[in-house]
């Protein structure tokens, strides 16, 4: 009876040691995900309708939240972002915009595409550019013109903390047209 009790105590102690070691190794393996602050899209010198500017910004936030690759997604000007260590800021500037027509797309099926090219710069808190890419959004066939912003945001949200870490040297604004 006494032996079985002491064996049980030993087993419990061994299990707790194994569990704590496992937890330690897990926390060491899981990297601390950075947060991202999405800045309002700048139209630059391109005459961009207000609804496209807002749709680009809101779609970016929605897509980053959906992907969950970043611990927290902050909006432009959010006070909490300033106090968050390791926050990455996403600056976006529209480089090219061609507004097509949904009616033309429906009727011709080849013309009337809407396309938008946005320069995305991921910057560290100190202003260092971590990654720079031109990302294009398009609607070719089905959908209204604002679908181009959704298409752009989906591609932009493919950029993860891992891809930021991998790109030690900022790329020279390479064109991203398809899936990144």
């Amino acid at each position, binding site marked *: 009876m006494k032996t079985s009790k002491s064996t049980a105590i030993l087993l419990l102690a061994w299990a707790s040691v194994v569990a704590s070691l496992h937890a330690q190794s897990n926390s060491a393996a899981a990297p601390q995900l950075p947060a991202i602050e999405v800045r*309002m899209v700048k139209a630059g010198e391109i005459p961009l309708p*207000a*609804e496209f500017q*807002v749709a680009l910004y*809101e779609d970016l936030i929605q897509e980053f939240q959906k992907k969950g690759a970043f611990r927290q997604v902050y*909006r*432009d*000007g959010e006070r909490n972002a300033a106090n968050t260590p390791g926050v990455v800021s996403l600056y976006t500037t529209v480089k090219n915009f061609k507004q097509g027509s949904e*009616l033309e797309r*429906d009727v011709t099926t080849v013309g009337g595409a809407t396309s938008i090219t946005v320069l995305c710069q991921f910057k560290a808190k100190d202003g260092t550019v971590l990654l720079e890419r031109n990302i294009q959004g398009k609607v070719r066939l089905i959908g209204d013109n604002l679908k181009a912003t959704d298409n752009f945001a989906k591609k932009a949200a493919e950029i993860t903390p891992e891809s930021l870490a991998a790109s030690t040297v900022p790329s020279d604004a390479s064109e991203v047209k398809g899936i990144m």
Partner: protein
Amino acid sequence: MIFKLARMKALPVLLSMSAFIPFGLAQQAPVSTEAVQLVGMAGFNNNSKGHLKVDDGVLSFASSKNNTSISAGSIDDVVTGRDSERVLGGTVGTLSRLAPYGGGTALSLLRKKVDTITIEYRDSGGGLHGAIFTMPVGEAESIKQALLAGGAHTSIPTIADAGANSPAQSDAREQVH
């Protein structure tokens, strides 16, 4: 005694002058319309149908499931525009594209014009939000006017201001797409 008499004489004069107080200082009547929230309002799915209302300097949007309101004073920018959309939207609209003998193309020619209103506002934490609504033609300008009267700001002058200053400025964005 003399002062009291003078005050009594002044009262009718003041009352008659009150009729000339400009309407702008009076409380703005509520403005409301049916609208579709395309993107941006917290707590709503994209393309939610609902009721948009501006009352006493507060913009509120209510659907059958949810409602939210924003103070006009927190709105940094209000821009109106015009667009057109397919009469047959949603899943029915998508399926109608498959109609045989060019029926899908013919159905896509059936379009209606809509007004759009785009707003940018800040929440209590300083975060910038944007929201886009579409509504029946002619409604966006009255919503914008009500928001401006409630303390909202705009980067594009209203029709009245644009007429007095530079008409080309407001036309830059307000085009039929």
